[in-house]
């Protein structure tokens, strides 16, 4: 099969293109929260993002990748013509990447997840046939797009209310913060680690018993909390600034916590959104190499590396700019508020990743921010913009689908 190399080569290029787009925009949004609250510098944010995006993709990204790869298109219909799936996945990658480029050039709020799912559904429904789409699965995915921001908002509300009750409304908020922030660090580390162990590790070929999973997650979380505790104890109040802003030192304690939630956020993002780029790539590789649809092949590690590398390149080229603009604008998100939003979003995303649901990280984060707002945590939220964001995905799906259909028919004519 001579064409094999052409297919894989094209898929790799398109996959990097898509991953680059994700890194330039989505990741930047996720990391901007930490930069805006001054918990991390931009350089630190990029290092954190690079490391944890990659870890998230490798350790916990398997389920979503497999959904994108074979959960949306019904492969039974394609047994006779495997090349159609290749054309379609190539078209989807190019369509989603192109749409992201157009949208971000124009400043439109779109989601990578919505574009790629729209693109795959589009090529399958029009290029192959309505029955080629696993509609029940697509329905579940669309539901998850509604549920995920709501869930994140609800969790964020609860977390921030607990912060208000336990720390911010107390007589000595600093002492309370020093006491409770390590507990929050524990929970942040515990959730992410546990979901990774339970849902993710099997994809890289490790099997651990349930009891051992809990034990391991607890152990890791305690370790991280202890490190955090040491960092927190070293924070000394600055009476001069304190006089103007009583919560100054308290926020510095929360900044330690935010370093942990920033890692969680990058990890969560990697576990969910990297799949948008490497899912279609993996599908092409699998079909091209085996020549059959639905072959039970493991995800090649170089595919993951391409996804991770593309994201890091996108982040360090265009993402830096996005992080600094967004970071400057969201100073209202102080560490005590930002951590609540990040932890809620990261938890929701990681759970979605564990169950293989491709959701939009940015929408989830927006939901979480609104949750903090409902707990009276944000000075001012512009509801017009919120409305625009949630309407935008309705537009993104047909746009991704349309482009994918066009590219699909082009590839069908041009490629061998």
């Amino acid at each position, binding site marked *: 099969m001579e064409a094999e190399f052409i297919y894989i080569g094209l898929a790799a290029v398109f996959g990097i293109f898509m991953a680059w787009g994700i890194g330039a*925009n*989505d990741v*930047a*949004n996720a990391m*901007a*929260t930490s930069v805006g609250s001054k918990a991390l510098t931009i350089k630190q944010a990029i290092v954190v993002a690079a490391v944890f995006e990659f870890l998230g993709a490798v350790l916990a990204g398997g389920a979503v990748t497999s959904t994108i790869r074979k959960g949306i298109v019904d492969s039974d219909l394609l047994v006779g013509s495997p090349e159609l799936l290749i054309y379609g996945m190539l078209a989807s990658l190019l369509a989603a990447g192109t749409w*992201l480029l157009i*949208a*971000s050039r124009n*400043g*439109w*709020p*779109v*989601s990578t997840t919505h574009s790629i799912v729209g693109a795959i559904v589009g090529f399958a429904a029009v290029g192959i046939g309505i029955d080629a789409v696993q509609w029940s699965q697509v329905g579940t995915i669309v539901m998850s797009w509604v549920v995920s921001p709501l869930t994140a908002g609800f969790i964020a509300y609860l977390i921030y209310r607990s912060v*208000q*009750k336990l720390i*911010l*409304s*107390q*007589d000595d*908020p600093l002492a309370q913060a020093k006491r409770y922030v390590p507990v929050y660090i524990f929970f942040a580390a515990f959730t992410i680690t546990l979901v990774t162990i339970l849902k993710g590790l099997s994809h890289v070929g490790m099997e651990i018993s349930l009891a051992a999973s809990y034990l391991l997650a607890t152990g890791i979380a305690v370790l991280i909390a202890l490190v955090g505790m040491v960092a927190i104890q070293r924070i000394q109040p600055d009476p001069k600034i304190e006089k103007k*802003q*009583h*919560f100054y030192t308290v926020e510095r304690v929360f900044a330690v916590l935010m370093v942990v939630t920033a890692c969680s956020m990058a990890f969560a993002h990697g576990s969910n959104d990297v799949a948008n780029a490497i899912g279609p790539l993996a599908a092409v590789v699998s079909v091209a190499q085996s020549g059959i649809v639905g072959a039970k092949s493991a995800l090649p590690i170089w595919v993951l590396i391409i996804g991770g590398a593309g994201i890091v390149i996108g982040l360090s080229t265009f993402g830096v700019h*996005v992080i600094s*603009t*967004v970071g*400057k*604008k*969201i100073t*209202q*998100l*102080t560490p*005590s508020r930002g951590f609540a939003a990040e932890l809620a979003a990261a938890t929701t995303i990681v759970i979605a990743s564990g169950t293989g649901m491709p959701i939009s990280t*940015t929408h989830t*984060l*927006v939901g979480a*921010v*609104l949750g903090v*707002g409902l*707990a*009276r*945590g*944000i*000075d*001012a*939220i*512009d*509801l*017009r*913009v*919120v409305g*625009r*964001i949630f309407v*935008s995905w309705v537009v993104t799906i047909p746009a991704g689908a349309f482009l994918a259909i066009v590219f699909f028919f082009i590839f069908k004519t041009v490629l061998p």
Partner: protein
Amino acid sequence: MGNMLANIFGSSPVMPLEKHVGLAYKCVSELRGFFAAAVTGNWEEASKFRSRIIELEHEADDLKKKIRLRLPKSLFMPVPREDLLELLLVQDKMANRAKDVSGIVFGRKMIIPPEIADEFVDFVDRNIDAAKQARKSVRELDELFTSGFRGAEVSLVESLLEELDQIETDTDDRQAALRASLFKVEKNLDPVNVMFLYKAIELTGEIADMAERVGRRLELLLSH
């Protein structure tokens, strides 16, 4: 997409409001120097203070307009937008009153009778105190927003407002006493001048009234 997360945050009115009350207080506090010069009839010195008052009042006014423009109806905030706008308005009125009273005194080169001069200056000082306490209270706004208008921070602001009320009551008492003192000596003075002296006392007293209304507005925010 790049800025969608950033744009959901409207511009926070908190720090601008704190800045505005600072300007309003600064404007009011210039009355101290103004009256010190006015009671001695040093109008050259008084005119310096008068122009500073006008300048600060303008600055406060400009900031007021800017804050209003940045608070569209689509903002979702922990407290009603109307209450914040009302707070801004009464803050601004403190500065307005300082301008008004200095305008009357300066424009008429008003002679403050030596019998009541000390009492008058003390009365002005107390009104400045009220404005200062209003500033101190409003400066807790960012902490109130951080703590979600709950708990210890609320009690702190409540105690500040209680103190503000006491200062305002004190200015009321002093105002009554000052009027009585003026009444005692008024028949020996030029009637038109006396009329405007009463007017100046009234306008000065309104500074503390406005400061108290700033307190009332803050209290309303606390009760949400």
